[in-house]
């Protein structure tokens, strides 16, 4: 109960930033909340299905590029058209890649998702027609004002949380947790487990696509660096940092990482090493993440 109150206050606070009209904060927090959407959707896979996927950023990037394509080539601008199409594109890609990747289990799965992500990265990076390593500008964004973009991102973040929380409380969510805890037993109980994992993969991919769409809306720019496994790795970091399998934890982890990245950049040139040290420290000393700290103190 108290946790929900805290999250509600946080949500309201983030919303209030829109009223301030501060340009920097809207850009920064907008980006941070996009990270929250990525983190929560990845937690569906990592925390609740037991699937460590490195393909998450691929779906993020695909939807962003889809927006660029729809707007620049077909002149489609209205979010009523572009949003569903881009999310659909990401979800469809997730269906294909997921179906192939889930034929592999365990570490194979992780490696395969890495391979597909890099494949897409090279596709966009090496094709001049798709913008090459420089990326593409979105000729006209779906929403014009920064305020509208921020509001959309804010609303989307809250909706994604509520949607995922709902799904996880439903029978499907329980089934997924059973698969995570003991997949072999679930199979012997009659569940065709691969199907459930594929559904989770598609949902996560579509939501990552939503995040990519919002990102392209916020910045008006897409580039291949967003697609690589390094980006996927950073989203995994937020999941671990926040606490996998808690849904709200990864969202907090994303916010925290956004702040760390921002201030780290201004403190030292080698802030990547800072992130690296943070990651290693969290793996070794705080494996249950921030949420683990919160829950630990609540119990003790």
């Amino acid at each position: 109960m108290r946790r929900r109150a805290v999250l509600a206050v946080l949500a309201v606070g983030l919303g209030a930033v829109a009223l301030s009209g501060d340009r920097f904060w809207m850009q920064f927090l907008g980006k941070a909340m996009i990270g929250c959407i990525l983190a929560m959707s990845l937690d569906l896979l990592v925390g609740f299905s037991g699937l460590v996927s490195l393909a998450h950023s691929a779906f993020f990037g695909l939807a962003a590029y889809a927006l660029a394509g729809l707007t620049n080539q077909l002149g489609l601008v209205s979010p009523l058209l572009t949003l569903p199409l881009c999310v659909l594109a990401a979800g469809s890609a997730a269906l294909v890649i997921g179906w192939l990747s889930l034929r592999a289990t365990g570490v194979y799965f992780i490696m395969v998702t890495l391979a597909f992500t890099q494949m897409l990265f090279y596709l966009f990076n090496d094709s001049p027609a798709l913008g090459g390593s420089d990326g593409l500008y979105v000729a006209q964004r779906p929403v014009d004002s920064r305020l509208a973009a921020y509001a959309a991102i804010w609303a989307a973040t809250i909706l994604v949380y509520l949607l995922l929380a709902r799904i996880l409380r439903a029978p499907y969510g329980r089934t997924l947790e059973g698969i995570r805890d003991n997949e072999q037993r679930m199979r012997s109980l009659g569940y065709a487990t691969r199907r459930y994992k594929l559904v989770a993969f598609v949902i996560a991919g579509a939501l990552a696509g939503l995040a990519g769409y919002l990102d392209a809306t916020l910045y008006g720019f897409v580039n291949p660096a967003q697609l690589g496994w390094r980006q996927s790795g950073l989203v995994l970091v937020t999941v671990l940092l926040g606490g996998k399998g808690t849904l709200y934890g990864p969202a907090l982890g994303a916010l925290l990482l956004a702040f760390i990245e921002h201030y780290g950049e201004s403190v030292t040139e080698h802030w990547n090493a800072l992130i690296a040290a943070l990651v290693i420290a969290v793996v070794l000393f705080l494996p249950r993440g921030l949420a683990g700290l919160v829950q630990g103190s609540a119990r003790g």
Partner: protein
Amino acid sequence: MSLSLFALQLVNGVEYGLLLFLVASGLTLVFGVLGVLNFAHGSFYMLGAYLAWWLSERTGSLALAILVGLPAMVLIGLLVERLAIARLYRRDHLSQVLLTYGLVLLFNELQRALWGNDVHGVATPRALSFTVPLGEAQTWPAWRAFTALCCIALAAAMRQLILKTRFGMRVRAGASNAEMVEALGIDVRRVFSVVFSAGTALAGLAGMLAAPLTTVYPGMGESILVLSFVVVVIGGIGSIKGAFLGALLVGIADTFGKVLLPGFASAMVYAVMAAVLLWRPRGLLGPAFEGR
């Protein structure tokens, strides 16, 4: 495509595949024996290449650079295993992925701080700077032939070591059941250290051999890492033979892909991977799936 061009590409593909094998064998061994997926494996390749460049600049000889660089790589492997990898045994996949990911970031920063962002060329040793004629119209650099021969020799040595020696037996035993091996009184930790250092050295050596061919540049670890993963997926985790076959397949597919479909060169390789996955989800020579 003319016959001599075909021969050239084939030979290039095989040589590339052999280099890939060197890298992938380390990766698959480490995973098979230690049970750890090491994303920083590509960084060892990069470190090897940078060491080769840096030392050969200082000493004027690539051969000397390799002789000094190899033990350095072994040492680096030992350190990394002791300090970081050892804490990953029996931990979940997410932890392994992220810890080694953190190592990649660290090594990248280290490389940038020490050697900067520039691309560097490395000269082959004068003794091997000639070319070998290939058919009528093509020639092949001797250094490539030397690299290929090194890889083949190492592959043969690995096979001998693992199949025919007592240490190799311990490696194989550790791969299938580390706890049992420990219970039998064999020092599994030592086996792990040796295997990891060997894997590191193999990747580093591949980097050193490749340095004159690909130049030395900041992102080189990542591209080789992903390809190694593809090789391991195709060949099957823990199987050296599978890594060998997979590496040759990937090397040839990639080389021919670059020539036949310039825009989609890498796509060829991933298409092969997808095809193998459809047919054999555990790789061509991976551990047999006992169930249904």
